[in-house]
């Protein structure tokens, strides 16, 4: 008997119990759909991370605050200001001045939360105080108008550059051009000199476009009232010099902050490079993918057990039929193949249905949920192969049970 005949027999049997076939298929299709969604989300997340890292500018080092208790002790040691920000503008300036051979640019950054207002519209946004180096260091650009100048920066002027989300919150339009207008930042008027190009993806769920960028000392003195900065970004001269730059910055800051060994335990700051960031994001993505994959595998197993259950039930119900088939000359192998084909058809059809569900689900997630979900053809092929394997794996036991039945016992079965 050829595969085509087994196929015909199986189709006929499946058709004669449509409801049961459909329900069993559903079990598998949910499993496959989940798998496809998971892979899509995983690949989407990986791509987001890659985009982010690419978007951060090349040769980038970032210096962050260290753990809180370190900062407090270090602050108590250096100055009586009680400030929690141990990184200062001077730190950033010194880095720039001392290592011109390794470091191309430094952008100090101070961050905080602000109220912004334009006419009647009110919104909470984040302020970023920095210098004109920010654009180059962070691979950013201005869509309309211009960034503020070094002059404006050093003169502590009240000028700002707006991100698209901040603009949208004020005007309802992300593409609004507010250059030349005054917006109110914490009840103080600031002249909008430029609009930032939309960045889109951000880190840790923050919207990088919900930002108002102003000169760094303006932010520290007028808006936030702090003496230190939050962090600063360093652009190295070349990728090969990043390790050296990292060492130089680290030893300089230890010296400037009067830190004592052991290091790096006693550091009150952290120097991160792109690779670290990437690794960190990737490990988060990996954890998520592992978790979701576990869910997918479990749902496939549940679907498979569903198939096994239904096939066992079907074999029991059709005991007499199996007896008849054997009595008129079916070999054990014929019976085995018949039931195995049934199980495979259920799982392959379920798999196809699941692929459809999964793709639609991924598209929905992408368009409404704001997730980055990528459906790759490889994932679809794998899903189909896996679902067929699930059918064969879980169908083999019931099929063997049917094939090994003794014809007389099967015929006598009531």
């Amino acid at each position: 008997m050829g595969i085509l005949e087994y196929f015909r027999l199986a189709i006929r049997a499946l058709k004669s119990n449509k409801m049961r076939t459909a329900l069993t298929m559903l079990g598998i299709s949910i499993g496959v759909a989940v798998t496809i969604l998971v892979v899509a989300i995983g690949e989407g997340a990986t791509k987001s991370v890659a985009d982010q890292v690419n978007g951060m500018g090349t040769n980038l080092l970032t210096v962050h605050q260290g753990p809180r208790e370190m900062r407090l002790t270090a602050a108590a040691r250096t100055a009586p200001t009680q400030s929690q920000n141990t990184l200062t503008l001077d730190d950033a300036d010194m880095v720039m001045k001392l290592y011109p051979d390794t470091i191309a640019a430094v952008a100090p950054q101070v961050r905080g939360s602000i109220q912004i207002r334009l006419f009647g519209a009110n919104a909470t946004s984040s302020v970023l105080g920095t210098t004109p180096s920010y654009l180059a260091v962070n691979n950013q650009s201005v869509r309309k108008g211009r960034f503020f100048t070094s002059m404006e920066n050093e003169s502590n002027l009240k000028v700002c550059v707006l991100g698209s989300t901040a603009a949208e919150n004020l005007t309802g339009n992300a593409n609004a051009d507010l250059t030349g207008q005054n917006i109110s930042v914490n009840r103080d008027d600031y002249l909008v000199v430029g609009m930032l190009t939309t960045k889109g993806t951000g880190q840790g769920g923050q919207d990088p476009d919900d930002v108002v960028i102003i000169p760094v000392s303006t932010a520290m003195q007028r808006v936030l009232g702090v003496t230190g900065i939050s962090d600063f970004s360093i652009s190295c001269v070349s990728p090969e010099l990043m390790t050296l730059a990292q060492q130089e910055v680290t030893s300089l800051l230890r010296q400037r902050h009067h830190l004592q060994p052991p290091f790096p335990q006693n550091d009150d700051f952290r120097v991160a490079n792109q690779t670290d960031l990437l690794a960190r994001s990737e490990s988060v993505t990996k954890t998520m993918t592992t978790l979701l994959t576990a869910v997918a595998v479990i749902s496939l197993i549940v679907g498979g057990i569903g198939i096994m259950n239904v096939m066992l039930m079907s074999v029991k119900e059709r005991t007499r039929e199996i007896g008849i088939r054997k009595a008129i000359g079916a070999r054990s192998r014929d019976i085995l193949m018949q039931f195995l084909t049934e199980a495979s058809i259920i799982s392959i059809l379920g798999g196809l249905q699941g692929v459809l569900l999964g793709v639609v689900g991924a598209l929905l997630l992408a368009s409404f949920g704001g997730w980055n979900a990528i459906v790759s053809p490889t994932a679809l092929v794998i899903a189909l192969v896996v679902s067929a394997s699930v059918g064969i794996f879980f169908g083999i036991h019931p099929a063997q049970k049917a094939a090994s039945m003794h014809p007389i016992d099967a015929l006598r079965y009531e």
Partner: protein
Amino acid sequence: MDAKEGLLLRLRDILKIYIMGGQEVRALDGVDLDVNVGEFVSIMGPSGSGKSTMMNMIGCLDVPTSGSYQIDGAEVSDLDDDELASIRNRKIGFVFQGFNLIARTSALENVELPLLYGRQKDRRAAATAALVRVGLGDRLDHTSSELSGGQQQRVAIARAIVSKPRLILADEPTGNISTLQSEEIMQIFQELNDDGVTIVMVTHELDIAKHGKRCVDMRDGKIVDDQPVADRLLAKEMIEELKKPRPTSKQVVAVGA
């Protein structure tokens, strides 16, 4: 091989023991039987005397506990499962006790099955011919639930003859069906037998047994009597008899008026 010319079945000292709740049941207790090509054997006996057990043995569906069974000179106990399946498929047509059609499957597809397992071509044509042969040419697409008892049994016969086996085994083929339908089935068997097909049939009705040429009687797993049928019944005549319009009192009145 001691297969004589024309000897189809040879059973020697066949023993079949079932263990039921620790109790030994001798379903067949030393059966000797020879059946030649072209015979029509009726097997009779009370319920539980081992008729079905013997039929299953002859039909290669079951193996004896001990003893020798040869079909066409081949010792059945020497054959493996696939060879047994092949014998069942090619040499034997089985009509079971009760109607053993596959549910929710058309008559045609039921009849095609042996050909399918025999890997034969032109199944549709052969199956149609077999169904026409048993008088069901107009019921090809009916499933078993859409057929009467007699019709289902005829589909089973069509399935048994479709691969043109040399031996037909029928276990109570006329149980639970009307006299006329029983006679129609006997007619098919007698025609097949006239064409040279060997038939072994189990029945507990003497009127049915008398359609065969030889009658074997069983008791408690043993053959107790084995004789040619003296006053053989011919189904064709019986059917004519049954179909003859018997005048009812109403008709008599009508004629009289």
